[in-house]
């Protein structure tokens, strides 16, 4: 390799900052209203093929059937079984807030009782020795006055003994 001549190199530092306000649409809006008002987690099922969705789906991804009949929704959880998880040990810039992630940060896929669905959310436990796929967990909700109708109305899933 030839040695490069000394040259000052110019970089441009830029920060991209763009706000968004995303309409959840229905039935996701109704799912969040139920979280906020009643601490209820809902799932629904495709009337054609029987696939289950949590949050409830509008359209079945398999066969494109409509499946948003609210009277057929079923409440699932708040307890469930851990399917799989990760524990993040390295921080990164959270693009939606511009802040660095607090680590360790653990997230699981929880099979909620009541229907064969998973919900992805934070786990309270971050010690790898204390997390095992198959263990029982339960959703912890924020107090009613702090709930805003978004996914963080659930704080996390805590480990439970049964």
């Amino acid at each position, binding site marked *: 390799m030839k040695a490069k001549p000394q*040259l*000052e*190199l*110019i*970089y*441009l*530092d*830029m*920060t*991209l*900052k*763009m*706000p*968004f*306000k*995303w*309409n*959840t649409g*229905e*039935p*996701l*809006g*109704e799912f*969040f*209203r139920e979280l906020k008002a009643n601490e209820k987690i809902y799932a629904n099922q495709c009337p054609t093929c029987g696939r289950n969705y949590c949050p409830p789906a509008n359209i079945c991804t398999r066969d494109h059937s409509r499946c*948003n*009949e*609210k*009277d057929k929704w079923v409440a699932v959880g708040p307890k469930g079984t851990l399917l799989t998880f990760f524990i993040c040990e390295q921080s990164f*810039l959270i*693009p*939606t*807030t*511009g802040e660095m992630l607090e680590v360790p940060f653990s997230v699981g896929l929880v099979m909620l009782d009541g229907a064969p669905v998973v919900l992805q959310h934070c786990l309270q436990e971050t010690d790898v020795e204390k997390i095992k796929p198959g263990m029982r967990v339960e959703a912890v909700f924020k107090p009613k006055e702090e709930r805003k*109708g*978004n996914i963080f109305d659930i704080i996390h899933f805590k480990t439970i003994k049964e």
Partner: protein
Amino acid sequence: MANEVVKKEPMFTEGYVIMPYKYSVGTLASKFFIEIRDHKKINGVKCPKCNIVIVPPRSVCIKCFNKIEDLVELSGKGTLVTYTVAHYDSAVQAMKPPYAIGVIKLDGADTAITHFIGEVDFKELKAGMKLEAVFNETRNANILDIKYFKPVKNKG
């Protein structure tokens, strides 16, 4: 059923996309920006094969796809090709409106550069008018080291 749901409070998820970047301008463009910062000189680059002069610099010839490695000095004066005047504001603009933006063909260059036009009555803007670069006092090796281009005043 669908209608009943829609009448309820609409739900939103709000947030930002906030991300920092560090863009390398490359070796040739570094030389270009350093010349502006240190010597208030706007350079072009010249294709060794077809002799076209490009500004702002590109290290590949836009005509013959040949590699370009050298700068050529230009006078910093040029001709207005076309222009517009911005009358509205948004979060991303570098200047408060109203202000004029022009496409300027520098003397000796085959391509044109876009920049602000200052010290000008918007009514006097005219394609073909002669312009010259005005530089900022503090310069940081970027394109805004050129404050704007202003009309060349005929002497006397």
